[in-house]
């Protein structure tokens, strides 16, 4: 199980999407998933090893890292990509259900099993709302958890067993900040695409 599995699932969704939906899939695949795999993963790979505190007290570094990064940026990014991609599967399941029904009754029950109309349109709209919801939730979570999208160079830590307030230095803060802003920009673009698709389907 890997990102390739998600890619295969999403390629199936492409068939039942509108034009804007296909653009959304292209943006997710290329500007989020591909970028995550080829660039972002390697930036955060050694974040714990390279997190350095100005102290020799054993355990202080571990405790401070855990305090400032309860969930790593890269893991939140992972979760966001998975949660945002999966509502589209509702549409795939609904289409499969329709095709199954037609096979069972041995006759054409729908105008076109893949065309968004009636019940399938509702499912599609629900999936759009869920996708947009998840995007917004994760952006807010990122903002609240890390007090913004900027990664500082230095954090001050005074949690036991650190004896006093200790300076801790984060590795590659600028590079991480740049990629986080990129993540925010692509999330916002995806939100805009989802809202446009929603308005297009409602007013069609």
């Amino acid at each position, binding site marked *: 199980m890997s990102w390739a599995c998600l890619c295969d699932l999403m390629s199936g969704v492409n068939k039942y999407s509108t034009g804007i939906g296909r653009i959304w899939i292209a943006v997710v695949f290329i*500007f989020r998933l*591909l*970028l995550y795999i080829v660039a972002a993963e390697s930036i955060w790979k050694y974040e714990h090893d390279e997190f350095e*505190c100005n102290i020799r007290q054993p355990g202080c570094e571990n405790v401070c890292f855990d305090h400032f990064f309860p969930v790593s940026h890269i893991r939140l990014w992972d979760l966001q990509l998975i949660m945002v991609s999966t509502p589209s599967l509702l549409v795939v399941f609904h289409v499969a259900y329709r095709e199954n029904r037609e096979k069972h009754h041995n006759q054409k029950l729908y105008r076109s099993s893949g065309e968004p109309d009636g019940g399938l349109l509702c499912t599609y709209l629900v999936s759009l709302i869920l996708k947009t919801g998840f995007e917004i939730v994760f952006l807010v979570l990122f903002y609240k958890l890390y007090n913004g999208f900027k990664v500082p*160079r*230095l954090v001050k830590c005074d949690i036991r067993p650190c004896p006093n307030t200790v300076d801790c230095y984060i590795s*590659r*803060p600028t590079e991480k900040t740049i990629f986080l802003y990129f993540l925010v920009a692509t999330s916002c673009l995806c939100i805009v695409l989802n809202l446009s698709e929603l308005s297009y389907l409602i007013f069609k």
Partner: protein
Amino acid sequence: MDWGSLHTILGGVNKHSTSIGKIWLTVLFIFRIMILVVAAERVWGDEQDDFVCNTLQPGCKNVCYDHFFPISHIRLWALQLIFVSTPALLVAMHVAYRRHEKKRQFRKGDQKCEYKDIEEIRRQRFRIEGSLWWTYTGSIFFRLVFEAVFMYAFYFMYDGFRMPRLMKCSAWPCPNTVDCFVSRPTEKTVFTIFMIAVSSICILLNVAELCYLLAKFFLRRSKKAGNAKHHPNHENKETKQNEMNELISDSCQNTVIGFTS
């Protein structure tokens, strides 16, 4: 999902590209993406671990590394390759849209659609004319812009394309000016120059392709104008027929009815 998937997506565009476009795609995949994956990533793999500063002050190395390398070469190249490849997707989307329209027409049983079966539509190679010409030319223009922007960003961020052996750092918490040594500077310089050279070749190929498409466009227009001048009556009907055929091949839609009526 990795560079291989991008290769699959862009490989489809190859069929509808000009010869120069096909050469560009080959240069992109072999001399840039492949070199990045098999060689450059290894050269830069230990960049932070082997970045050594002449101090025992904790945090000084992290801060100095971040100051001199705000974004790593490798990541910048990955971003550049992604941005430079994506305009080609506009062409892929346009072709997919045309195929979809033709399939729809074929399924309706329209007489104007000249295909025998769906497979033929799937296999058909579209000529770069009409609206597809504009999409294709636009994609080349955007590629050029992205290449130029990234090359400038490289030059601006790293003060040229050479990787120095030694950097002097006095960012806090380093106590004084401290010597920091970059790992594999010569190898990195060689690869940087190589990637810049290949980017320049890609820029030249894009410029050549743009000139070729523009020349073809103006030649076609002057031929049409020339023909209309010499054979006005005969050509009126023929030009209209040509325009009709273009519209049919462009969109397979009913706007043609306006001409016939």
